[in-house]
């Protein structure tokens, strides 16, 4: 297992170096003068221009700039936001819990419903239940989620008035942030109604973000279950008189879930892409909205740092899933 883990780690290193290279190149291949780009329409005086060129090291040779960049990264310096002047890492950390809370809720919803729907469809294969579930899953998989979000807002917020349209909690509830997770913080604050308000704000964004992973997980669970149900050991389990629920729940599910776990891991990248759209629509103060705002404000240091941090995070999760996969499925360790 240790050898397997090490080989996986070694494989990730060049990818990680590549990611830093892409993030590094991003600012440098933007057409035009990097300092003028960052200054935007205000422009800068020639003296200030030279000063900034030197400050960011744009006057040095390319390889030297890259070495400096890596050096800064290793010290935890991801650059500074041009508009707020605050360190990029600090801004990222301030917004990350909001995205994490939303993504966790979405992936839990997607996994629970998706696995259940997938099992049901596989067990009732060919029935109307199977067809309805898989039809719905295909619609979910094809859904433009930004439009789906708008539809849900029209129905639940505008027409029925059940859910709020934006933010993480009603503005009337103010309390200091402890964990960064609104669900936890609102409980800790002890204010009546705060937790309910946080849940209300979370419902629609969670549904929107969960839609595509839910569809993917349901489809994957169904096909994994179908594959397992055809195995010889399933016949053995049935013929030795085990109850159907035991056969499905224990023998089939445990084997079918192995590929499903990988699928769930791969959804992290999908979730981050979805978070950009979901957070923009629901004004959710997470890193997806932060990236979009920074791109439209041309705050390129933030875009660069955010790109690197997000990619690194996705890679880390995928590596973890890979290792977990090796843990539950000994066969892959020896390939």
């Amino acid at each position, binding site marked *: 297992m240790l050898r397997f883990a090490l080989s996986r780690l070694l494989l990730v290193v060049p*990818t990680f170096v590549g990611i830093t290279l892409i993030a590094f190149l991003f600012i440098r291949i933007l*057409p035009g003068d990097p300092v003028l780009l960052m200054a935007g329409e205000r422009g800068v005086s020639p003296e200030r221009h030279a000063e900034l060129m030197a400050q960011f090291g744009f006057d040095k040779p390319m390889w030297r700039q890259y070495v400096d960049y890596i050096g800064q990264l290793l010290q935890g310096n991801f650059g500074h936001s041009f508009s707020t002047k605050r360190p990029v890492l600090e801004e990222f950390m301030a917004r990350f819990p909001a995205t994490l809370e939303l993504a966790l809720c979405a992936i839990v919803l997607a996994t629970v419903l998706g696995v259940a729907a997938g099992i049901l469809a596989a067990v009732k294969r060919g029935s109307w239940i199977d067809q309805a579930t898989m039809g719905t899953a*295909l619609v979910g998989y*094809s859904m433009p989620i930004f439009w789906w979000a708008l539809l849900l807002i029209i129905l639940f917020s505008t027409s029925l008035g059940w859910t709020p349209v934006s933010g993480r909690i009603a503005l009337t509830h103010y309390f200091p942030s402890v964990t960064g997770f609104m669900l936890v913080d609102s409980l800790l604050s002890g204010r009546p109604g705060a937790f309910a308000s946080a849940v209300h704000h979370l419902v629609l964004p969670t549904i929107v973000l969960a839609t595509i992973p839910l569809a993917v997980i349901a489809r994957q669970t169904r096909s994994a279950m179908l594959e397992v149900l055809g195995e010889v050991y399933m016949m053995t389990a049935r013929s030795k008189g085990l109850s159907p629920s035991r056969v499905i729940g224990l023998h089939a599910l445990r084997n079918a879930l192995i590929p499903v776990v990988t699928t769930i891991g791969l959804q992290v990248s*999908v979730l981050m892409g979805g978070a950009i759209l979901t957070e923009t629509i629901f004004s959710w103060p997470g890193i997806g909205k932060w990236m*979009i705002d920074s791109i439209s404000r041309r705050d390129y240091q933030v875009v660069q740092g955010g790109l690197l941090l*997000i990619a690194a995070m996705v890679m880390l999760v995928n590596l973890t899933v890979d290792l977990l996969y090796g843990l539950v499925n000994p066969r892959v360790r020896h390939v």
Partner: protein
Amino acid sequence: MTVQTPDPTLDPVPGAGPAAQPVPPLLENWHYFTRSRGAVVGLGVFMALVAIAVLAPWIAPHDPAMQYRDALLVPPAWTAGGREAFLFGTDAVGRDILSRMMHGARFSLLIGLVVVTIALASGIIVGLVAGYVGGRTDALIMRLMDIILAFPSLLLALVLVAILGPGLFNAMLAIALVLQPHFARLTRGAVLAEKSREYVTAASVAGAGHLRLMFFTILPNCLGPLIVQATLSFSSAILDAAALGFLGMGAQPPTPEWGTMLAEAREFISSAWWVVTMPGLAILATVLSINLIGDGLRDTLDPKLKRS
């Protein structure tokens, strides 16, 4: 995956007697494809969309850019206050939504076509080279693909558009680059599986050059999974382009692109539901029909699934 050869154990095609001629591969695939009702429906809807896109300038009831100043935010014809001239209503500046949707079909299908062509062509070349040459070249190319895949695709496309500048063509380029690694990986995997087969050795011994081996001997036998991936990429290209348009980084107003139309409609979400509903419905219908075709193709072209 190998060339589809008629297999005598397969279900016979209706009308084919026991001693009938072998079924041509294309016909056999068509037979399997049509066994899935969803795939046939998907194909029908898709063909209708293609027809609408091609004929849009002639069948659209209005000019998509024409602003009827006396008809701002007119609701659909079947609701109270609707007008017969505007079946799906009008938007905030009095443009006919149905006409804009019809013209939007041209953009979406063009986006899908261009993106898949670029991604498929470059992915095949890159994957063929990686798989055929092997060694360091292979390792280098595949690490590069890993790097691209490490970024969430929408985020990478956004950043690329930020570099290239917003616009429909740049959005298509960015999406093609993001989708390309999938084709490269698939091609490489298939090439690795086929490279050591006897027919390749035979062709090589017979004196076929590297290019001939790559493109004419090996590639045709890797096409099955690539066709399926191309179909699925077609729909993700349309979704991603619409998402970029929605975020203001794709096609720019007043282009009647569906995502861009949605972005313009956002502020009328509480007052005029039809402005928001209609373009999204078009995106969903298009993407759904293509995914139905993709599912059908996968079942047809994947021999493992064929008789399950």
